[in-house]
């Protein structure tokens, strides 16, 4: 029996070394180019970091900007491809899965590195208020990029404890996040595990507790620093689902500390015909032309009276 155990260990050591070498190779660009095709994991390496990390870096970098515009994927769709040559506004579009928690961190990073900041704009779809750290894809879009940048500490102790109890404290550690995020194979295995067994597939919240908390907290921080906080909607699909969601959002925010913030948000909602949208939230590719998006931005500016001179249109 002892001989068998020794043989088994001798058999397993080279096997584990080979598997470890394959895994290590997936951390390199060349290795990943080959291995991600073999393992069908092309879309998993730095999946959320690619979206959020540049925003984190920009928010942290000192500059002459005095206003920051943060937003979800619909905001990014509308504002993408416009040449931003504006020394005042810093545009940081990310994704709904970043959640309000992530937008809060970005705002805090901007405020800390821009002492002369005057305005923070949050441009979010009604559905974006529902996201939490335990929603589908939030690990890759919130925990991984913000954890790698060691910026999760901006969040409250309750949120951090909630994340620890949901994911396990090991999976909030920088090196573990790097081990997952840096390899498409590792990330694929872990993210699918989360999707299948851990994270919520559907969220029935209208506004998550975290979103309400961080909007209120950001509002107070901005007041303390004499910074104006604006909550604005990007173009919203004119669907029954959205109509219902907006009504429920009105109810949920009524008589709360963030009611004032939302009053202007609801006034500024511009509804666009359903046929223009591919999934009820994002424009179909044929409506992502410069003219349509430019009109959307004009509409946002006219309704809110904000964001004037934000973009220089591309001819």
């Amino acid at each position: 029996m002892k001989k068998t155990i020794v043989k088994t260990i001798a058999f397993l050591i080279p096997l584990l070394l080979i598997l470890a070498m394959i895994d290590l190779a997936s951390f390199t660009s060349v290795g990943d180019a080959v291995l991600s095709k073999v393992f069908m994991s092309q879309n998993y390496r730095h999946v959320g970091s690619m979206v959020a990390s540049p925003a984190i870096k920009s928010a942290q970098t000192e500059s002459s900007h005095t206003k920051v515009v943060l937003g979800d994927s619909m905001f990014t769709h509308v504002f993408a491809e416009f040449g931003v040559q504006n020394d005042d506004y810093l545009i940081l579009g990310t994704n709904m899965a970043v959640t309000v928690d992530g937008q809060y961190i970005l705002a805090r990073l901007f405020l800390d590195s821009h002492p002369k900041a005057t305005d923070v704009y949050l441009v979010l779809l009604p559905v974006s208020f529902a996201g939490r750290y335990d929603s589908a894809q939030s690990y890759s879009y919130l925990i991984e990029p913000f954890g790698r940048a060691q910026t999760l500490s901006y969040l409250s102790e309750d949120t951090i404890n909630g994340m620890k109890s949901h994911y396990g404290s090991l999976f909030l550690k920088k090196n573990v996040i790097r081990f997952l995020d840096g390899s498409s194979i590792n990330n694929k295995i872990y993210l699918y595990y989360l999707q299948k067994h851990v994270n919520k597939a559907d969220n029935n919240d209208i506004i998550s507790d975290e979103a309400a908390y961080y909007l209120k907290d950001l509002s107070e921080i901005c007041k303390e620093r004499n910074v104006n906080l604006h909550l604005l909607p990007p173009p919203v699909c004119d669907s029954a689902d959205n109509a219902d969601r907006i009504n429920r959002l009105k109810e949920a925010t009524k008589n709360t500390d963030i009611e004032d913030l939302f009053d202007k948000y609801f006034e500024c909602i511009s509804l666009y015909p359903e046929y223009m949208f591919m999934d009820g939230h994002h424009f179909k590719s044929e409506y992502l032309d410069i003219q349509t998006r430019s009109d959307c931005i004009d509409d946002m500016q006219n309704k809110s009276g904000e964001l004037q001179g934000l973009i220089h249109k591309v001819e």
Partner: protein
Amino acid sequence: MVHNTSRRFRMILIISMVLIALIGIKIQPLFANIKPIQIFGISFYSLRLIAYVVDVYHGQEEVHGLEDYLCFISFFPIFTAGPIEKSEHLIKELSVYKAFDEKIAYRGFIMILYGLFFKQVIADRIGVMVDEVYGDISGYSGAVCLLIVVLYSVQIYADFAGYSYIAMGMSGMLGIDVVKNFNRPYLTVSIRDFWRRWHISLSRWLRDYIYIPLGGNKKGQIRKSINIMITFLISGLWHGIGLNFLVWGGLHGLYQVVEDTGLKLFKKKSDSLIGRVLHIILTFILVTIAWIFFRSDSVSQATEMILRIITDCNIGSLTQGTIFELGLGSIQITGLLIALIIMVVSDIMLENNIISLDKFTSCPAVIRWVVSYVMIIWVVTAAIQLYGTGETAGFIYAAF
């Protein structure tokens, strides 16, 4: 006399209870307003239970204690999808103490690896393409549909044989032999031969507990044909309560009846290699046609598939890149082709006794280890490939 009547009554009572439970579980999908209850492996241990009761009644099996009996019914490697072991053999295996034997354990390990190779590398990858086309038959040309029905024949073989190898391997590692369930069934020269080598334990069960009690072949040709048909129709219904399963069973019954009634094409066994190959191909085609009904959700879907193949079979469309739009990339398809070649070649070599598990386990350790490493890495790679795509599937037969 009274004693016999009482024993007979008890046997019928137990069998009836088992059948009521089995049929009750099977017919749930027919009622839309019922949330179906899933009972793992019920089809398989129901058959084991019936076999045990009948054998005890006929005095072919002794009455075992509850402990032995429960060990036999719940033996975990074969619990979900067989093989359908007879109590006599398995209880004997379970009750004999066997010391750990490294060679036997290694054989078991290799069988598990071979089974995983069948399941993960071959069956699950083919399953991606099969599911894609069966989900939208009208969206694909007849040639693609033809390719898919052929691939499904391979998928179900690799899936079920894979399960059986794993079950045998796990049992083997514990020093317990379970009956062989597959013996390279697609290398058979007739349908009768196919059923001797496909799902062997079910075929034996149907023979022993349906076909022979019905009279077998002892009451003339017509009665024999009827018995064959009844046996295969029951086999179809055992797989699922649906007209498609009934047609699948009926087709196999019909094939055998035709074979039996002397159609030379089937009956005459050619000794030449070409003749043998032609018989193998013909048998494979007949089995594949029946699998269309087995895989389809309904007879109308199967009919749609067949009509698509007949009316729109432009083989040229296969070269237009459609194959690469069925859920697998070029690397995965290349890997699948290599795996299929390995499966076919190893099956042919095993069939002709050129290689065997015993010969492999006697090879130098370096060769065995390298082969094992390649297999393990291939299986792990295949598992990760499909992980997260929503295409990883359980064993097909575990659903019955």
